[in-house]
C-alpha cells in the first residue's frame, strides 16, 4: 500500500504529510500532525466532535480522507483564537458555562464559527438545527445555544 503525499494548508500554515490511502483527515490531524484538539466521538459522522472546515465548508473530518486534503485549506479549533485573545465564540462559551466535560466543545466552536459566518443573525431555531450534528451529552444544549446567540450578537455589534 503506497503512502499518499499531500500538500495542504492547515489553519493557514502550508503543511505536508504522508498518509495511508485509508487514513481519514481526522487520523491525519490527530496522529500525523499531533493536533489533538479535533476529537473522535463516533467515526461515522454522527457526533460532530471532529468538525473542521475544508475550504470554509463545515465537515466531519472522520468522513474525509486525508488524501482529499490535497490543495485544500483546512481549518481546525487550533486555528480559532490564540494565546493572547480568545475568539468571541470561545469567550461566550466560557461566560455562559456552555461546556461541562468539554469533549464536544472544539467541534461546537468550529461549527458555531461556520454558522455565524454563513448566517450572522440566526434565530434560536436556526442555530439549533445548524448545530444538530454536534452532540453534547452534558449540557442539554441550553447554555450552548445561549452562548451561540450571545456570540452572534457580539459579533454583529463588532462588525
Amino acid at each position, binding site marked *: 500500500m503506497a503512502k499518499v503525499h499531500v500538500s495542504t494548508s492547515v489553519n493557514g500554515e502550508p503543511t505536508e504529510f504522508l498518509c*495511508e490511502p*485509508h487514513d481519514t483527515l481526522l487520523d491525519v490531524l*490527530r*496522529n500525523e500532525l*499531533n*493536533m*489533538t*484538539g*479535533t*476529537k*473522535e*466521538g*463516533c*467515526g*461515522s459522522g*454522527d*457526533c460532530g*466532535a471532529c468538525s473542521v472546515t475544508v475550504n470554509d465548508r463545515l465537515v466531519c473530518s472522520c468522513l474525509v480522507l486525508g488524501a482529499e486534503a490535497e490543495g485544500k485549506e483546512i481549518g*481546525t*479549533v*487550533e486555528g*480559532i*483564537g490564540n494565546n493572547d485573545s*480568545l475568539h468571541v465564540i*470561545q469567550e461566550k*462559551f*466560557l*461566560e*455562559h*458555562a456552555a*461546556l*461541562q*466535560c*468539554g*469533549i*464536544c*466543545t*472544539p467541534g461546537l*466552536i468550529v461549527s458555531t464559527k461556520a454558522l455565524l459566518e454563513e448566517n450572522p443573525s440566526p434565530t434560536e*431555531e436556526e*442555530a*439549533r*438545527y445548524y*448545530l*444538530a*450534528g*454536534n*452532540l*453534547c*451529552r*452534558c*449540557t*442539554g*444544549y*441550553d*447554555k*450552548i*445555544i*445561549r452562548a451561540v446567540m450571545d456570540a452572534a450578537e457580539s459579533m454583529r455589534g463588532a462588525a
Partner: protein
Amino acid sequence: MSEAKDYKYVGTRRVRPDGYDKVTGRANYGADLTLPGMIWGRILRSPHAHAKIKGINTSKAEAHPGVSAVVTFQDFPEKSQGSPLAQNILANEKALYHGHAIAAVAAKTVQIAEEALGLIEVDYEVLTPVMDLDTAMADGATLINENLKTVGLPEPATEASNIAARQELKIGDIDAGFAEADVILEREYSTPTVHQGYIEPHACTVRYDENGQSMVWCCTQGHFDVRASTANLLGMELGKLKVVASEIGGGFGGKTTIYLEPVALMLSKKSGNPVKIVMDRDEVFKASGPGAATKSWIKIGAKKDGTFTAMQAKMAFEAGAFPGSPVGPGTMTVFAPYDVANAKVEGFDVLVNKPKVAAYRAPGAPQAEFASEMLINELAEKLGMDMIDIRLKNAAREGTQALYGPKFREIGFIECLEQCKASEHYQNAVAEGNGRGVGAGFWFNIGGVSSAVIHMNPDGTATLLEGSPDIGGSRASMQSMAAEELGIAPERIKPIVADTEMVAHNDTTGGSRTTFATGMAVIEAAQDVVRQFKERAASTWNVTPEQVEWADGVARNTAGDGEMTCQEICASAGRTGGQITGRGNINARGAGPSFSVHIADVAVDKDTGKVDVVRYTASQDAGRAIHPSYVEGQIQGGSVQGIGWALNEEYIYSDDGLLENPGFLDYRIPLASDLPMIDPIVVEVPNPFHPYGVRGVGEANIIPPLATVATAVGNAIGRPMPDLPCSPPRVLKAIQEG
C-alpha cells in the same frame, strides 16, 4: 453548621479554571496521549450473545508482521482468574454478550492490529441467548452461569438460577395499609437498556515497567479505583502503578469501572512497548456498561384526600452478564420521596446476555421512580387532584422516616414542589391538544474519602491538588471554596486533578460526591493553610496565633499593630519555618439527599406518534449552589438525558441477541434541535452537615423526566404510556388502540 451567610466567592458565576484549554482544543483527553515507541491495541469481540469458547488459536495473529503481542484471558495471573471483573474484561470459558472481549492484539498500527484480529481463530459453540427478564426468570430458563444460586431468598436456594439476588424492604403493615385505602391502583411498567452516551469513548495509553513504575493514562471517573482494580487483577503493588486521569469526556457513571487498562498493560508487558487502546463507538455501545433494563409492578392505596396508605413494588433489574444491577438503590428509592407508613418493596437482580450494567446517574433510581411516579400521576387523575398537590400531601420532610431506614434531616422536597407549582410554566395551562406531566426524584448523594493538598507558592498564589476527576466543572467549585477560605482571589488558585502519586486516595467521582466531599477536603486543606498563616504571622509579631485574625487574605495583629498579606507571608515562608502546605484528608460524613421536581409540556403528532417537548422546567435542591451556572448545567443536562430515556433511547437486539443499534445514528440521544430551553429552578435548603450547605447535584435531575415526559405524552393522547421509550411507533400504537 451551615447558616445563611454572605460569601465572597461561593455562589458566584466565575469562568472555570480549565475552560481556556477546553475551548481551544488544548485539553488532553483519554485518546490524546502518545508515547515514544507506542503501539496500538485492538480487541477481538464475540460475534455471539452466548457461546461456549472451546478454543482460541492466536498463532497466526502472533506471526503476522507488525504484531508485537497477543493476550487472552489466560494471561491474567491465576489468582485473578476467578474474578468476575477479569472475566468481563476478557471472556473466560464463555462469551456472555455480543461484543464480549475475547482476545487483544498490539501492533505497529491500528490497521495491522485489526488484520491480526481477523487471524485469531475462536472455536465457539453457540448457545441460546437469554435476552430479557421474563425469559431469564422463567422456570427452566437457559442458565447463563450454571453455578449461580439466588441469594436473599427466605430459604437458601438449592437450584441454579439466572436470578442472582432477591431483596426486600418493608415498613409497617402493607395489608392493613391497603385495607384503609379508598382507592387502589396497580400497573406494570418497563424501561429499556440505555447507555450513558458520553461522547468520549473509553481510551488509555499505558507503559508497563517490570522494575520501576508502570503508568496508565486514561479517561475515568476514578483513577484511584482504576489503580486499585488494575493492580489487584495484575498482582501489582499500588505504589508501582501510577494512574493519571486525563480530562474526561463524559462518564455519567459509565467510567467508574475498567475495561481496557489491564489488557493494555498485559500487552505492554508482553511487547515491551507503550500501548494505546481506544474503543470505537461500536465497542462502547456493545461492551461498556449500559444502564439496566427493568420491569416493575407498583400498587398504591390512597384515601380520597390523596393520602397514601400503602405502597408496594416488585421490581426486576437486568444485571447483564454478571450479577450486580442497581436493584438495591432501586428498591431504596422507589418510594423515598413520600411519607408512607406501610410499604413493601421486593427487588430481583437478574442475569441476561447483555453487557454487565454500569452505574448511570443515580443508578437504579430513574427506573424505579419512573414506575412509582407514573402511578402517582394516574392516582392524582383518578382522585381529581393536581399532580403537585398530591405530592405535597404526601411529601417527605424533616423527620420523615425513609423506607430505606433513616429519618430525613432538613430536605428540600416541599420547596421544589412549591416552587414548581408557583412557576410561570405551571401557572399557565397547557396548550390545547398538548399534554403536561409532573414527576419527582430522590437521590441519596454520598460522601466518602477525599484528599486535597494546597501548596502555597512564594508569590502568594496557590496550587490546589485534588484527586477527583472533574467531569462537569468541579475544579471551578473547588477554586471558589478554596478562595472563600483563604480569602484570596480565585484566579490566584490553580486547581489540578492530581494523579495517584500526588495526593492520597480519593473515592471515585460519582454519587454526586465531588463538590460535597472533595469540597470538604479542600476546605479543610485551606483551613490548614490559614492556621499556618496565623502561626507565621504570630511568630513574626511575637504574639499567639489566637491573637491573629485572618480575613480577606490578610493577617491582622489584634494584640497590637501589624498586617501581613498572604503574599508577604508566602514570600518569607522559607525563613519563618519552611514553605506552607495545607492538607485535607477526610472521610466525608453527612451527605445530604437531593430532591427534584420537573414539569414537561409535550405536543404529539397524532398521525405519526412523534413527540415534541415544547416546554420544560426542572427544580432541584442543591443545598448550596457553589457555582450556580454549573448547578444549572447539571440540572439541564440530567433533564435532557432523562428526556432521551423517555422518548427514543433503547438498545435494540435481534432475536439472536445481537445489538442492532451500536452507534449514535440509531441509538438516538437528544439533539440541539429536539429541545426547548430547560428552565432550571435551583432550590437551596442547606445540608446541615456541610460547611456551606452543599448537597451534590449530579444525579437527582435524571430521575423525574422519565415519568414527567411519559405522563405528558399519555395526557396528550389520552392513554397511559407505561413502557419506555415513548418512541413514535409505540405512541402511534397507543393512539390507534385508544
